């Protein structure tokens, strides 16, 4: 299999990691496995400038431009749909829509808290996808891991509802972490031991998770006395409110996860190995690392994070789970990780952006009569500009800026090699 057309595909030419953090001791080692055959199309990006402002721009210019361009495209869509929304051409409708979106998300204390609460699961699930990217894995299964974490938290929370809060909360969160982690371990183990590609297995596991939830919530976990199938109330396992009206403890967990993820990726040996495997599995194996084990570890960790996101939602906001519990958090997480360029700080920023759009969209629908689904459209357009970053760079005349998604160039390339070891 490795005899295939491999030249430009396997080189870690677009790997920006050593430069991203020059102070890290990881630098020289990765540089040692420098690209062998740089084709003109996949040129090595220039090293990052030392000046912090210039450095920020060279990393963030494309994502920020993508967001701005997507908002512009969104305003065109709103303009075009004004015939349906308000029954006539209304040139100021985009301004009206965006201003109520802003007021809904940042205009009041409640709005701000709503933004943070909406961003919380996105941070954790976004890290679950982003850390996977760093290890060269595309974790489409964040949705399933999120749901399994939610299920575990709902079941355990209901069982521990009468226990003292520390035990109940601790137990339910632990269950969420284990539930999600297990759902990440399965594709990790399958990839490490059999070569089954994680993209397909995690998609399948998303649906299997939905089936498991459908069974458990209508069956063994169903609480008596409700008109529809749902788990019992989580009682003492509910996360305490620490911010405003509905800002729950999950916010703190998400905020803690960001520096932890950063430390893991750039300050620990494990993270170094993880990124090396992501950049070049063969080099990693040659250097004595064990890609299989690292794959299992990474996907389990990703699952754990996504599971915590799901657990936080159940214990912090909804308080129970029903059979059709389905938010698209796991899919938004992919968008967050891509926009945040798989960097913990970027993921935090992207989550806040998407959280703000979610939190403000309700007011926008009421005031400007633009359906909340416009948020999904704008998110998709952002991703489109990130993927087609050539356009963005042409508009900005940014030759030097890095592309939006260059961290993850190795992901799909391995698709054809699955099951062929």
């Amino acid at each position: 299999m490795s005899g295939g057309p491999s030249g430009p595909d396997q080189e870690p030419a677009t790997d920006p990691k050593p430069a991203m953090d020059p102070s890290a001791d990881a630098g020289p080692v990765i540089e040692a496995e420098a690209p062998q055959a740089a084709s003109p199309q996949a040129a090595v990006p220039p090293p990052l400038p030392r000046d912090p402002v210039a450095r920020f721009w060279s990393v963030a210019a494309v994502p920020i431009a993508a967001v701005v361009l997507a908002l512009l495209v969104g305003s065109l869509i709103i303009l075009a749909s004004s015939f349906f929304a308000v029954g006539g051409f209304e040139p100021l409708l985009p301004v009206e829509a965006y201003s109520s979106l802003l007021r809904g998300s940042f205009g009041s204390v409640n709005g701000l808290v709503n933004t943070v609460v909406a961003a919380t699961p996105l941070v954790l699930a976004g890290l679950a996808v982003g850390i996977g990217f760093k290890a060269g894995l595309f974790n489409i299964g964040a949705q399933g891991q999120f749901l399994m974490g939610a299920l575990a938290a709902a079941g355990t929370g209901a069982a521990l509802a009468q226990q003292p809060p520390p035990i109940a909360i601790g137990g339910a969160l632990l269950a969420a972490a284990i539930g999600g982690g297990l759902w990440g371990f399965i594709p990790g183990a399958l990839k490490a031991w059999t070569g089954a590609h994680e993209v397909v297995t995690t998609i399948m596991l998303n649906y299997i998770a939905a089936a498991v939830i459908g069974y458990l919530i209508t069956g063994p976990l169903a609480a008596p006395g409700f008109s529809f199938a749902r788990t019992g109330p989580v009682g003492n396992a509910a996360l305490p409110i620490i911010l405003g009206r509905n800002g729950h403890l999950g916010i703190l967990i998400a905020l803690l996860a960001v520096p932890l993820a950063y430390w893991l990726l750039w300050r620990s040996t494990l993270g170094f190995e993880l990124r090396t495997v992501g950049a070049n599995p063969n080099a990693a194996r040659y250097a004595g690392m064990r890609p299989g084990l690292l794959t299992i570890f990474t996907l389990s960790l990703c699952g754990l994070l996504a599971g915590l996101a799901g657990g936080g939602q159940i214990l912090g906001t909804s308080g129970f789970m029903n059979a059709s519990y389905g938010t698209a958090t796991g899919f938004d997480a992919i968008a967050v990780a891509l926009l945040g360029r798989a960097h913990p700080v970027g993921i935090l920023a992207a989550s806040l952006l998407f959280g703000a759009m979610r939190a403000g969209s309700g007011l926008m629908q009421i005031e400007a009569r633009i359906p909340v689904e416009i948020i999904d459209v704008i998110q998709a357009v952002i991703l489109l500009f990130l993927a087609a970053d050539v356009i963005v760079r042409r508009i900005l005349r940014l030759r030097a800026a890095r592309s939006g998604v260059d961290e993850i160039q190795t992901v799909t390339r391995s698709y054809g090699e699955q099951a062929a070891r």
Partner: protein
Amino acid sequence: MEQLFQTLYGIPLLGLVFQLGGYLVDRLPSIAPIVLGLAAPIALGALCGVMNERSGVVNIGIEGIMLIAAFVAFVAGAFAADAFPAEGSDVFGVTPALLIGVAAAVISAMLVSLLHAWLSISIRADQIISGTIINIAALGLTGYLNRLIISANPRAGAGTFKSFNPPDALVDLPIIGWVLNMFLDQGPIAMIVIVLVIVLQIMLFRSRWGLRTRAVGEHPKAADTVGIDVIALRYRNVIIGGAFAGLAGAYLTLEATSSFQNGMTSGRGFIALAAVIFGRWTPIGSFGAALMFTAAEALGVAIRFRPPDGDLAALGDVMTAIPNQVYGALPYIITIIILAGVVGRSIPPAAVGQPYYKESRA
């Protein structure tokens, strides 16, 4: 004879297998048309997957393409039904509005596929990310426009194609009667699936285009060396594949139901992906896989309403004890098992997922 079966059914454990066979022979004929109807969109999606992956492009955006096509089919059909009201024809109940809906669905799906082709072939973006973007965009865009257009006109719609009613003489034929009925008691889109499958199977393995497609999917460099235009061929295949996904979308809103709901593809595009893997990247194989997947689902429903009884009571106990969700999740579980190579390996085309650089040194 009766006694023979009773003895067979009585064998511990193995008897259950015989009972399952007996149950299927008894029950399948009556649910077969439903099974094929359920399988039609999945099989069409799988044909799209085969077209893409055989030429070296991963397309996990089938789900999104299907959803957009389903929406466009419904809206175009509804507007056309307003503009040209007409009685349906005797066979299939064809109206101009329905045909316009199908055409619009196919064209829209080809346009979305063009986007995927451009992103993954020309821009060389990550193909899985491109597909993911299409899925997210489809969900958002159709949800948005659904609220804006369809919810405002709740009674709009073009109706549906009607099933063809095969003559009784044909249906009553022994042994093959129910198979004929399965393929004939269908609307036009479901009926055409089997034709497309066979044509594509022959084309892929017996035509010049098929040989070139497979060459490009396995070793694009070699194909390029002998003068095949890799980029053009991939573009063409991705776009034509999109047409199949478009038909699947039209099937959902113009044949299976007469309405559009948000996210109504509900994972069919992903099951199609599974069917491609299970069918080892061949049209016939993935059609079979789609049939098997939906048969499992239909069986799950059938068991709830009429579990095996009498001679088959033992089987009935086992099958009703299995939670209903298991039958629904079977396609996904089977796909993972297949991918893991527990029951035979399924090896994808070698160059799948790798963008092609014409001038690179490789």
